[in-house]
Structures are given as structure tokens and as C-alpha cells.
């Protein structure tokens, strides 16, 4: 059982967040406790998306559910918790189906993490706009993905 006392768990969601540090009381209002200043802008951007209305894109996309917003917040906090520095802030935007996406560009490398409407998280790694790899993102994979994004260029690459 996780030490964090008030986290609600989304059952059936493969993305499992890292074990949260002990916080004596997290409160009911869902205010987001921060461990790094890096997370401030992305969290604000996620919370802003929570107020998108139905059909915000003109194509009938639904507004973004509380569950997706919460999952995106957890994802941002988990990225922050990796402590990989420096890491630029991601672009935070809505997806057409009612999810939230985080996108990074660093040189030729790009990484996207999409929180889907069902709460699952998927990633796409790209180089110079060409997708290299995609799939379900897990907390364990997160470090590898972000490290790749900020890491040195592979000298073996053509």
C-alpha cells in the first residue's frame, strides 16, 4: 500500500506512478504539491486544459476529464522527479480525442508522451521528425525516454 494517504487510484491504468514521497496530508482540493519549480509551468498548462469546453476543436472533441488531467499531472510530477537536468519544459496541449500530450524538442530528438482518454500513457520517440519507437509508457521506461531525449548524440549514429 502506498504511503501517500489521499491519492485516488485509477484502476486498470497501466501507467503506475512512482512511489510518492511521504506527505503528511495532501488535502481534498487536489492542489498540486510541488517538489521542483520545473513543474510549475507544465502543471499550470495542464490545469488550464481542464477548462476546455466540449467541441473545443470544432471537430466534436470532448472536454478533458478530471481523470486525464490528474494522470497528466502525475506524469509531469514523475518527469520532474527524475531529476534530469537540464530538461526544458514541454509543450502541453490537448489531443483530438480528449487527452493531453507533452511534447519536447531537443535538437533533432523529439519525445511525446500522450495521456489518452482512458488514462493510459503512450510515447513516441522521433529523430528529425522520423518516429523511431512508440508504445505504452511506463514509469520504469520514463527515465530511459527522458535520458535519451537529453543525452549525448549516439556517436555510432549515421
Amino acid at each position, binding site marked *: 500500500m502506498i504511503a501517500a494517504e489521499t491519492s485516488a487510484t485509477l484502476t486498470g491504468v497501466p501507467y503506475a506512478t512512482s512511489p510518492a514521497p511521504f506527505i503528511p496530508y495532501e488535502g481534498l482540493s487536489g492542489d498540486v504539491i510541488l517538489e521542483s519549480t520545473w513543474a510549475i509551468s507544465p502543471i499550470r498548462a495542464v490545469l488550464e486544459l481542464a477548462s476546455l469546453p466540449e467541441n*473545443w476543436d470544432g*471537430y466534436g472533441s470532448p472536454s478533458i476529464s478530471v481523470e486525464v488531467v490528474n494522470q497528466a499531472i502525475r506524469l509531469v510530477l514523475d518527469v520532474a522527479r527524475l531529476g534530469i537536468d537540464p530538461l526544458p519544459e514541454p509543450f502541453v496541449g490537448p*489531443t483530438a480525442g480528449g487527452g493531453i500530450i507533452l511534447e519536447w524538442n531537443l535538437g533533432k530528438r523529439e519525445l*511525446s508522451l500522450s495521456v489518452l482518454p482512458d488514462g493510459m500513457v503512450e510515447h513516441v520517440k522521433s529523430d528529425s521528425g522520423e518516429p523511431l519507437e512508440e508504445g505504452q509508457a511506463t514509469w520504469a521506461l520514463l527515465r530511459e525516454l527522458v535520458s535519451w531525449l537529453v543525452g549525448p548524440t549516439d556517436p555510432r549514429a549515421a
Partner: protein
Amino acid sequence: MARPNWADDPSIPDEAILWRGIVSRQIRPNPRTQTDGVSQGAFETQELSVNVAAETTAAAVLAKGKRRGVEWRLWEFTAGQARSLGLIVDRDPESDDPSHAVIVRADAPGLRLRGSQAKQLAEIGRWASVSISPGPSSTVSVG
């Protein structure tokens, strides 16, 4: 409109330009091109609505957006480019929009476009070149 029987329509040729309306929240800077790009999230859906440019006008598409309460910029790519990503393009005319078409996955039309497909639509497309003359009767040319 959701349908169970999407099929690629060969009457939409590969060179046909397709337009997708993009709202401001989906626009993000592209550092590689030093221009405004589009978030991959704009294409992460099961049935991607587009318009066949040759069968409508930019003004009509933009007006459709306005009727739906949004301001669009038009992102364009060709039907052939979409097909090369493993997608199919099928007509889905609407009562007020006969040029409406839908892009779905060729391998699994009911499923959301793969992240890589959405990413590539954001990469291979470009902003439609649209000029609107001032005045009450706007004329639009696509250059």
C-alpha cells in the same frame, strides 16, 4: 460520422490536398524549422475529419469552423501522404459540407491513429497558403 465500413476511396487521388482545421492550442513552435508547427495531438483521434480542398474553398472551411465556434488555421497534406503512413481516406459528405472526408487507420479503422502516424501528419504537412481579400464578399485563393 462514425461508420463501421470505412474504405479507401480511389476517387480521391493521391495528389488531392486535404485540409485539417487547427485551433491555436494545437499550434506549437517547431525549433527545427523555426516556424509554427502543429502538435501531434491534433491528429490523435480515431476518425480524422478533413476536407478535400479541390471540392471546396478555404473560406467555406473556415466559415464551418466559425459556425462551430472556433477559429481555424488550415493544415494541409495530400491524400497520398496520408496513405503512405498506413491510413485510408474515405468520403463522408455532410449535409452542409459535401467535401468532408475522414482519415482512419488502414489496419484497424476503429482504433485511434498511432502516435507515429499522428506525428508524421504533423511533420509532413504545411500551413495552407490562404489569402482573404478585405471587404464584405471575401474571395479566397489557395496559393
